């Protein structure tokens, strides 16, 4: 359940970003790589639970999935894949160097003054 630790990190950034004028967090937008091994439902559940009693209580967590891409170690083709590991469409070789799909970034926070 590393999602709890991720949610904790997320809330920490939210709280240190808010100014006294920001009364309430409406929405938190994060992007998560498809191959990062993060379960969106778990992250949302954990965030809801730990945000209780903070200005982010009840905020909507919007998770955008960043597609995963790999570079084949044999034929060097760059290809998109689903799941945690792919197979090169060019030569059939398994996996390769991950080019994207491993990121976990808090992009924006939408806040209300009331």
């Amino acid at each position, binding site marked *: *359940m*590393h999602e709890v*630790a*991720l949610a904790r*990190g*997320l809330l*920490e*950034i939210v709280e240190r*970003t*808010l100014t006294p004028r*920001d*009364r*309430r967090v*409406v929405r938190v937008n*994060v992007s998560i790589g498809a*191959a*990062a*091994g993060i379960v969106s439902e778990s992250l949302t559940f954990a965030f809801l639970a730990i945000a209780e009693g903070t200005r982010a209580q009840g905020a909507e967590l919007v998770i955008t999935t960043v597609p995963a891409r790999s570079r084949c*170690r044999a034929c060097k083709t760059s290809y998109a894949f689903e799941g*945690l*590991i792919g197979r090169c469409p060019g030569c059939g*070789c*398994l*996996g*390769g*160097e*991950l080019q994207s799909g*491993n*990121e*976990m*970034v*808090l*992009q*924006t*926070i*939408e*806040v*209300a*003054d*009331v």
Partner: protein
Amino acid sequence: MCETCGCGVPSVHTIAVHERLLASNESIAEHNRLHLTTRKIFTINLMGAPGAGKTTLLEAMIRGRSRSGRFVVIEGDQATDRDSARIRLAGASAYQIETGLGCHLEATQIHHALHHLEFAGGETLILENVGNLVCPALFDLGEHLRVLVTAPTEGVEKPLKYPPIFRAADIVLLNKCDLIPYLSFDSGEWTEYVRGVNPRAAIFELSAATGDGLAAWLAELERRRFGFLGSDASVP
């Protein structure tokens, strides 16, 4: 509220953040790494499933009289100080972290532990992570090298089933190789899967129980440590 007419409809604005979710852990990890690097303490994050043989391997490394400096170990387990007791018995100093409900070590726990250990400088510090093939992959502790211990008893498909941790490793050790004759484990197939997930990882096959392959791994460890120490290899 609405600044135009004061109607009470909240005005919503967007704050751009663009920060990694684990930024706080990563900044503490950087702090740890700087502290350890300055003191020439080569640090390894040792990860693996429960029962892969991480502690047995450490005992063998400590008893193997490696030239990789004195070993100091920080043990992470959900409960008990059994592993740190085993490490002390093998001849190295150890500090135990009991993580309770935590399923992995985090940089702040290492930072805290470092204040409880004495270093002369030049030691090899091993952070034995909580036995888990999922969560430790995400958390930088401030180490210089990530080593994954796995065993043929876990089956050939582990790299395919748990790619992030195999991807995070600099070195993958296949422990318990003495058991391969008794298992339906194809080393070639397993190696192919590891390479698929992580083309850059160095792979070593060994047995902490019999000592087979241990010398090659210790030589690699020494090579990496000397690389870390740079030209200043005079440190014990």
